[in-house]
C-alpha cells in the first residue's frame, strides 16, 4: 500500500460526468449525421475504407469481411456486427433510396430476413459513391488522426450528392433523435438550383420542386400541412399508405391487392398481423390472405367475402395495421458538430455553402499544382533552348549534386527546375517532344488563368456548382416512387365512397341491408310491383327508409345502449335478399336486441332525441351529445 493513491469520488458526480461523456459522444460521433455529407461516422468510415481498398463500382466485388476488418482496424474501433449491419443497409434497395454499396449475395429482404454472414457476401461501392468521394484527394476536406494516431481519416466527405436529403437519416442519440425521410435526387437538385438562383426562396416555393419525400418502397403519402411544417420548421408528420388495387375475382367476389407498402415496414410481420386480426374477428369480410410477392415485386392479396364493400375492408385494414403508418419527420443534424433542427431550406443552404467551400479548396489545390508544373516547364523550356550548353555543364560536373548547382548558377534555375532537367530523358530532345513541352507550358498557363478567374469570381464558382449538380441529376435522376396525395388532410373512407341514396330495409327479426335506390326503377301503368326484400316465413319487413351512404344510423338497444354505423358499412345486397343480422354488425351482447333506429345526417345541437321507457320515464337529450361515433357503444 506504499504508493497507492486513493481518490475518493462521489457517485452522483461520477455518474453525471460519465453520462455526460457518453451522451455527448453518442451525439457528436455516432447517431447523428453531418449536415454536409449527410453521413454518420460509421458510414463515412465504411465508404472511405472502401475507397482506400479501391473497391470502385467498376472493379470486382470483394468479401464483405475484408471491408469490415479494414474499417474496424483502421478507423472504427467498435463491434464488427455494427459495421457489417451498417454496410449491409447501404446495399438494401428497400432501405436506401439510392444505394451507395453494391452487394453481391444475400443482403436481407423486406420480410426482415437478415443478410448472410459477412464471410459469404461480397460488396463494392455503387456508382453514386464515386460522386460522394469525388475530389477527396485534392485537399478538399480536413483529415484527422484515427483512434490510435497511426493513420488519418476524413472528418467529412466532399460529397457532390445531397446525401442527407436523398437518402435520409434515422438515428437515436441520447435525449434527441433524428428522422429525415429520403427524397428524389432530381427534385432535390432542382431545389438546390432554385436556392442558388434565389437565396431568399420560401418553403412554399421550394415545395414546387420538392413535392415531398420519396421512399424506396413507394406507397402513397398524405398530409400536406404536416409536410409543410416539416420543411418549414424541421418538425412535422405525414401519413404513409400502402398502394392498393381492387381486382374482380369472379362474379360478386373481389380482392384487394397491395403492391407497395409503407417505408420501414416488415412485410411478413404485416401479413402475420393481418391474419391475427382476421382470426380475432377485428377485421371482417376477409376470406383469404396470401403473400404472392416474387422477384417482380410486392403482391399481398386479400380475398373478400361475398357482398363486402372493398373500400370498407380497406379502411379497416388501414386503421388496424401498418398498411398505414405515420412518419414523424424530425430533421436534426450536426452543424459544425452541434446538433441543430433544420428546415429544408436550412439543409439545402448548408449543402450549397459546403459545396462552394469544396470548389474553392479544389481550385486552390489545382492552382498550386498547375503553378508548380509551370515552374518546371519553364525550366525545361530554357534548358531545351540552350541544350548544348546544358549538356556541356552536366558533362563537366563531377557529381549529380555538382551538376545541379552548376545549372542553378548558370541559368538561375531553382533547385526543383535543375532537378527536373537532370531527371529529363534523352528522348525529350527530339523535335516532337520539345514542341510538346512548349504546348504543355501554354496549356498550363491558360489553366492557371482560368483557375485564378474561378477563385476571383463567386458567380463563376456558383456556375460550377450548378453544373456539377446538373451532372448529378443527369447521372442518377429517376422516377419518383412515392405518390403524394394532395389536400387529403382528413381523408376518410367517405372520400372514396360516392354519396348515394340507399333503400334500407330492416326486418322484424333484425336483418338489415341496403340496396341502391336505382334498383327500384319506376314502373309504368300496369306494373305489378317489385319485391323490395325477402324475408323468412316468420319474418317480415318492419322498416324501409331511404338514407344516404354518408348518413349515420343509430341503433338503440333494450340494454339502454346506442351503437353507430355508417350507412355504407351496411351490407349492400340485391332486392331479393334479406341482408345480415344487425347483431352481427354491432358488437352486441347476448340477448341484446335493437329496439329503435334513427337515421342522422349530422349531429346538430338544435335537435333532440326523446327516450321513453316502459315504466313511463321520459327524457330528452341534445343530438350533439351522441356525436362520438368513434366509440363502439355508449349509454344513451
Amino acid at each position, binding site marked *: 500500500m506504499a504508493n497507492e493513491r486513493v481518490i475518493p469520488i462521489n457517485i452522483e458526480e461520477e455518474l453525471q460526468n460519465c453520462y*455526460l461523456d457518453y451522451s455527448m459522444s453518442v451525439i457528436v460521433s455516432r447517431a447523428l449525421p453531418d449536415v454536409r455529407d449527410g453521413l454518420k461516422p460509421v458510414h463515412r468510415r465504411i465508404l472511405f475504407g472502401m475507397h482506400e481498398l479501391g473497391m470502385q463500382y467498376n472493379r470486382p466485388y470483394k468479401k464483405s469481411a475484408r471491408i469490415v476488418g479494414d474499417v474496424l482496424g483502421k478507423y472504427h474501433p467498435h463491434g464488427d456486427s455494427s459495421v457489417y449491419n451498417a454496410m449491409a443497409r447501404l446495399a438494401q434497395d428497400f432501405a436506401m433510396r439510392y444505394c451507395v454499396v453494391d452487394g453481391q449475395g444475400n443482403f436481407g429482404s423486406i420480410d426482415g430476413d437478415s443478410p448472410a454472414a459477412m464471410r459469404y457476401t461480397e460488396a463494392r461501392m455503387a456508382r453514386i459513391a464515386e460522386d460522394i468521394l469525388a475530389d477527396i484527394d485534392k485537399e478538399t476536406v480536413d483529415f484527422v488522426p484515427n483512434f490510435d494516431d497511426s493513420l488519418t481519416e476524413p472528418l467529412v466527405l466532399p460529397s457532390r450528392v445531397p446525401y442527407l436529403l436523398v437518402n435520409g437519416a434515422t438515428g437515436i442519440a441520447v*435525449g434527441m433523435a433524428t428522422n429525415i425521410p429520403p427524397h428524389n435526387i432530381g427534385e432535390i437538385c432542382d431545389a438546390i438550383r432554385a436556392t442558388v438562383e434565389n437565396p431568399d426562396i420560401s418553403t412554399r416555393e421550394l415545395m414546387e420542386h420538392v413535392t415531398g419525400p420519396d421512399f424506396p418502397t413507394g406507397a402513397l403519402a398524405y398530409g400536406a400541412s404536416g409536410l409543410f411544417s416539416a420543411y418549414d420548421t424541421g418538425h412535422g408528420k405525414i401519413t404513409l399508405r400502402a398502394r392498393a388495387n381492387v381486382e374482380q375475382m369472379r362474379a360478386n367476389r373481389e380482392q384487394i391487392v397491395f403492391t407497395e407498402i409503407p417505408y420501414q415496414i416488415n412485410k411478413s410481420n404485416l401479413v402475420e398481423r393481418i391474419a391475427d386480426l382476421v382470426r380475432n374477428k377485428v377485421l371482417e369480410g376477409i376470406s383469404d390472405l396470401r403473400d404472392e410477392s416474387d422477384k417482380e415485386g410486392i403482391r399481398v392479396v386479400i380475398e373478400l367475402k361475398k357482398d363486402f364493400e372493398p373500400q370498407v375492408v380497406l379502411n379497416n385494414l388501414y386503421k388496424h395495421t401498418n398498411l398505414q403508418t405515420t412518419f414523424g419527420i424530425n430533421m436534426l443534424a450536426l452543424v459544425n458538430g*452541434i446538433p441543430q433542427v433544420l428546415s429544408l431550406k436550412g439543409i439545402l443552404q448548408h449543402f450549397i455553402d459546403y459545396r462552394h467551400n469544396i470548389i474553392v479548396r479544389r481550385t486552390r489545390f489545382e492552382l498550386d499544382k498547375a503553378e508548380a508544373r509551370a515552374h518546371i516547364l519553364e525550366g525545361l523550356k530554357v534548358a531545351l533552348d540552350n541544350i548544348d550548353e546544358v549538356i556541356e555543364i552536366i558533362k563537366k560536373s563531377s557529381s549529380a549534386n555538382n551538376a545541379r548547382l552548376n545549372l542553378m548558377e548558370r541559368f538561375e534555375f531553382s533547385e526543383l527546375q535543375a532537378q527536373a532537367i537532370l531527371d529529363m530523358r534523352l528522348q525529350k530532345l527530339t523535335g516532337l517532344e520539345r514542341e510538346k513541352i512548349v504546348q504543355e507550358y501554354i496549356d498550363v498557363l491558360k489553366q492557371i488563368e482560368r483557375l485564378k478567374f474561378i477563385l476571383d469570381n463567386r458567380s463563376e464558382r456558383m456556375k460550377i456548382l450548378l453544373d456539377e449538380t446538373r451532372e448529378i441529376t443527369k447521372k442518377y435522376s429517376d422516377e419518383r416512387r412515392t405518390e403524394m396525395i394532395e389536400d387529403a388532410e382528413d381523408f376518410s373512407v367517405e372520400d372514396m365512397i360516392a354519396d348515394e341514396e340507399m333503400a334500407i330495409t330492416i326486418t322484424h327479426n333484425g336483418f338489415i341491408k341496403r340496396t341502391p335506390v336505382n334498383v327500384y326503377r319506376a314502373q309504368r301503368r300496369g306494373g305489378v310491383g317489385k319485391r323490395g326484400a325477402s324475408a323468412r316465413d316468420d319474418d317480415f319487413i318492419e322498416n324501409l327508409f331511404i338514407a344516404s351512404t354518408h348518413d349515420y344510423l343509430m341503433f338503440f338497444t333494450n340494454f339502454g345502449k346506442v351503437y353507430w354505423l355508417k350507412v355504407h358499412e351496411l351490407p349492400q345486397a340485391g332486392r331479393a335478399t334479406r341482408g345480415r343480422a344487425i347483431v352481427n354488425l354491432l358488437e352486441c351482447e347476448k340477448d341484446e336486441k335493437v329496439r329503435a333506429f334513427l337515421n342522422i345526417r349530422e349531429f346538430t345541437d338544435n335537435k333532440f332525441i326523446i327516450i321513453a321507457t316502459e315504466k313511463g320515464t321520459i327524457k330528452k337529450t341534445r343530438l350533439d351529445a351522441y356525436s362520438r361515433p368513434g366509440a363502439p357503444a355508449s349509454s344513451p
Partner: protein
Amino acid sequence: MLIKRMRKERSTKVGISRYKGLGEMNPSQLWSTTMDPDSRTVRQVNLDDAMAADHMFSVLMGEMSRPGAASLKRTRNTLRTWMYNRHPAKV
C-alpha cells in the same frame, strides 16, 4: 513532451499505445498499470446522499422522453462546454 525527450535520448523507437483494458492488454501490463498497489490509482466511490444519487440514476438512466426545443438548446450549450474541455483547439 515526454515522448519527444525519450525519442531524442534513446536510440530505439518509441510509440504510444492506448488501451481501455478490454482484453487489449497483456497480464503484465494490466498488473503494472491497474493492479499493482504500488502504482495503481484507486477511485473510491462514495455514497453521501442516497436520495440524490437515486434521483440522478433515474434522471439519467430511467425512461427518457424526447426533450423539447428548450432542452435541445441546453444540450447544445452543454455540448459546447464539453467539446471545449476535450478539444479546445477544435472549437
